[in-house]
C-alpha cells in the first residue's frame, strides 16, 4: 500500500515537472519544475528499497545477521539517491547562474524572449 502511494507521488512529481517544462514561461519557475522531475526520480528509487515493516539497514553490533538480512530494507538504492541528489543540486546551481548572466543581457525572465531562436541567417545581398 505504502509503496504504491510512493509510486503515485513520484509519478505525480514527474508529471508536474514535465508540465512545467512545456507550459510555464518564466525561466526560474521552469527550472523549479524541472527540479521536481529529479525529486520524483529520487523518491521512486528510495521507494524500491523500502521494505514495509522493515528496519533501517544499519547493522548494530548486537544484532543477529540472519535476522538483519531478513528484515532490513535494501540499501543499494539509497546510496544511488545520495549521489543523484547532489548532482541535481549542482545542475540547478549552474542553470541558475546562467539565468543570472542572461538576465543582465535581456532584462526579462521570459523564456520566449531569452531563449528564442538564434539561428536566423542574416540578410545578405550581393
Amino acid at each position, binding site marked *: 500500500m505504502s509503496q504504491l502511494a510512493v509510486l503515485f507521488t513520484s509519478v505525480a512529481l514527474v508529471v508536474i515537472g514535465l508540465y512545467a517544462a512545456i507550459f510555464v514561461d518564466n525561466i526560474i519557475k521552469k527550472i523549479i519544475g524541472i527540479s521536481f522531475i529529479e525529486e520524483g526520480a529520487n523518491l521512486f528509487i528510495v521507494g524500491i528499497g523500502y521494505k514495509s515493516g522493515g528496519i533501517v539497514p544499519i547493522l548494530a553490533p548486537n544484532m543477529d545477521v540472519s535476522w538483519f538480512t531478513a528484515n532490513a530494507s535494501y540499501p543499494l538504492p539509497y546510496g544511488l539517491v545520495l549521489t543523484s541528489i547532489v548532482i541535481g543540486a549542482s545542475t540547478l546551481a549552474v542553470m541558475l547562474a546562467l539565468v543570472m548572466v542572461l538576465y543582465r543581457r535581456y532584462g526579462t525572465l521570459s523564456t520566449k524572449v531569452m531563449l528564442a*531562436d538564434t539561428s536566423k541567417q542574416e540578410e545578405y*545581398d550581393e
Partner: protein
Amino acid sequence: MKLYDQIFNVVKTFKKLFSPGPVTNADVSGSITSEIFLIVSLLMSALLLRHLSILLTGLVLLILAVVLITNIPLIPKFKIEQEDSLEKMLFYAIVTLGIIVAFMYWGGNFV
C-alpha cells in the same frame, strides 16, 4: 518544362525565406538536391514497413508520395519546425518521450 518551372519557383520561395538576392547555380542545385533527397529518403524508409505488411506499405507509400509531392517546397516548412528556440525543442522532446513510453507499454510485445 512545367516541372522545371515548378522547381524554379520552389527555389525562389526558398531564397525569399532565407536570403534575398539573385538565384545562382549553386543555390538551385543545392535546394533541388535537398528537396529530392528528403522525398526519396522518406519514401525509402517507409519501404521498411514491408516487413510488417505489404498492403500497408503500398498504402503508406502512395499517401506519403502524394502528400510530399503536392507540398513541394518542403525544406522551408521543415526548417521552421527545426529551429533553435527552447519551446520547440522541449515540445518535441516531451512528445517523443510520451510516444516512446506509450508505445512501449502497449505495443512493446507485438513487434
